[in-house]
């Protein structure tokens, strides 16, 4: 070792290296989760698109105008609107996996899918469960702001469609004006717990990375001590000749 280098300097340098490696491990772990969740949603979005087309073809394939049979607007909605909702987030998941924009676009798209499926099933209350399932899937990101994006999108969509076309969202033509607030309240109820869960998961990931750094630091300490002992033993043996 260079005599001008103080032990405290080498300890500081080693600590910096250990901390940098811990941060790199944490970032890699987080990126891995974000990217795999992006991929999961890409598959889910395409699956929902196929399912929506199947649903439209099964439930209401044709409309009648007098004696003229036409393809029902629901089929076109499933194909075209569903395609529009799906293609951007899937492209982002393929081209920019792990990026902040990608997961927020996916969150919005997933909520628009809930809205479209609710519409295609005539506002069935059971289809509203898709919203809750989607929020739970979004929690896989362990990034709570994504849940806020989803909440704002679905609450805004319910509010607007509740005014413009209430039957398509609630299944009845004249719901109370505050019905969207009731739905939004249940969404907020689950989102509060999912946000807490995301924050805890994030903290656990951080603690795991820090625990790894501490163990690495201990190992570094043992290596340094053993090296000193080895050097002393070697010098002693050399003196004995």
């Amino acid at each position, binding site marked *: 070792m260079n005599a001008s280098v103080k032990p*405290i300097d080498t*300890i*500081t340098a*080693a*600590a*910096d290296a*250990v*901390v940098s490696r*811990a941060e790199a491990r944490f970032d890699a772990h987080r990126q891995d989760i974000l990217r795999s969740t992006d991929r999961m949603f890409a598959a889910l979005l395409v699956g929902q698109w196929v399912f929506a087309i199947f649903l439209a073809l099964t439930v209401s394939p044709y409309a009648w105008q007098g004696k003229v049979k036409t393809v029902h607007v629901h089929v076109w909605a499933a194909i075209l609107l569903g395609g529009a909702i799906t293609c951007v987030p899937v492209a982002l998941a393929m081209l920019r996996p792990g990026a902040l924009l990608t997961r927020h676009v996916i969150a919005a798209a997933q909520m628009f899918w809930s809205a479209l499926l609710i519409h295609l099933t005539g506002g069935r209350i059971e289809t509203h469960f898709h919203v809750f399932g989607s929020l739970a899937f979004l929690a896989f990101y362990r990034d709570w702001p994504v849940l806020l994006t989803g909440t704002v999108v679905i609450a805004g969509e319910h509010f607007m469609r509740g005014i413009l076309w209430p039957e398509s969202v609630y299944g009845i033509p004249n719901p109370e004006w505050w019905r969207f607030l009731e739905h939004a309240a249940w969404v907020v109820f689950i989102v509060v717990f999912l946000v807490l869960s995301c924050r805890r998961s994030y903290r656990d990931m951080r603690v795991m990375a*820090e*625990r790894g*750094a*501490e*163990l*690495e*630091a*201990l190992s*570094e*300490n*043992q290596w*340094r*001590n053993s090296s000193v002992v080895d050097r002393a033993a070697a010098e002693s043996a050399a003196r004995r000749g």
Partner: protein
Amino acid sequence: METQGQQTRAMRVPAYDRVVVRDGEGKRRQLSRNEFERLPLRERVTYLIGGTAEFFAGTEHIPASEAMKG
């Protein structure tokens, strides 16, 4: 899965509840476990690499390698 030996060792070595650290000038400072764990990671790692953190459960000294397992 923990082996019986690991369980026995885990039972023998209690979790630390306080830490005594020495800074570069040799000044000693006593911290609770919570205070130690809230130190910035760089500071904790520096103590561990330098061997300047001593771990205790009550009055019993705990080796750093055992303390970090609990």
